[in-house]
């Protein structure tokens, strides 16, 4: 499953979906809205937007790369858009693999590449009422 969604993300459902009887390891990553920004300002929430088709296609490419690099495994990537509050899950990656090392490596690769490459934007809202678009410092194709 490679999707951009507007509803809350059910990480467990995504994990169930990747598992097969050949897989001994399921690793999930959930990105969650934190109460503080990287520069330690109190955050009220985040707004996400995405080019939904391009993002879902990028997720699929990233998953194909991860399967290629780390051995056969099923991967799902789901990102939420819209207005999220502290504690909400913004992104989930689930990977199933025969053994744990491949599952961990593929999951970490997928979330790293998603943050770098996916056409998704995030605006951080602060308790003082101001807000800011955040970019990933090691994003791909940065000008």
């Amino acid at each position: 499953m490679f999707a951009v969604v507007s509803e809350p993300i059910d990480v467990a459902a995504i994990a169930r979906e990747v598992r097969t009887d050949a897989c001994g390891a399921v690793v999930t990553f959930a990105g969650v809205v934190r109460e503080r920004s990287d520069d330690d300002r109190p955050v009220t929430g985040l707004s996400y937007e995405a080019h939904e088709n391009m993002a879902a296609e990028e997720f699929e490419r990233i998953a194909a790369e991860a399967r290629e690099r780390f051995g056969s495994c099923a991967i799902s990537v789901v990102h939420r858009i819209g207005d999220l509050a502290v504690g909400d899950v913004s992104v989930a990656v689930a990977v199933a693999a025969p053994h744990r090392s491949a599952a961990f490596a593929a999951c970490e690769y997928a979330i790293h590449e998603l943050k770098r490459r996916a056409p998704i934007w995030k605006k951080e809202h602060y308790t003082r009422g101001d807000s800011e678009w955040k970019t990933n410092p090691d994003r791909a194709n940065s000008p």
Partner: protein
Amino acid sequence: MKVRVLAFARVRELLGSAREVELPAGSTAAALWDELAKTCTGLPALAKSTRIARNGHVVNRAEILHEGDEIALLPPAGGG
């Protein structure tokens, strides 16, 4: 010809999320950008940092656009 322009984040805040733009046949991505910049004073400052995708694929500014294309304006991203 008409193309459909999608904009995101900072660029969306300037242009709105979607609009149709009428251009001479054979126009490039650069020409579309210049057309949009005519009526949007904030846009030129974002020229260097904004990538352009045509029908879901990032292209360079010399790309020739076609009737019905979906052109996406992609400022620096940061999902996750």
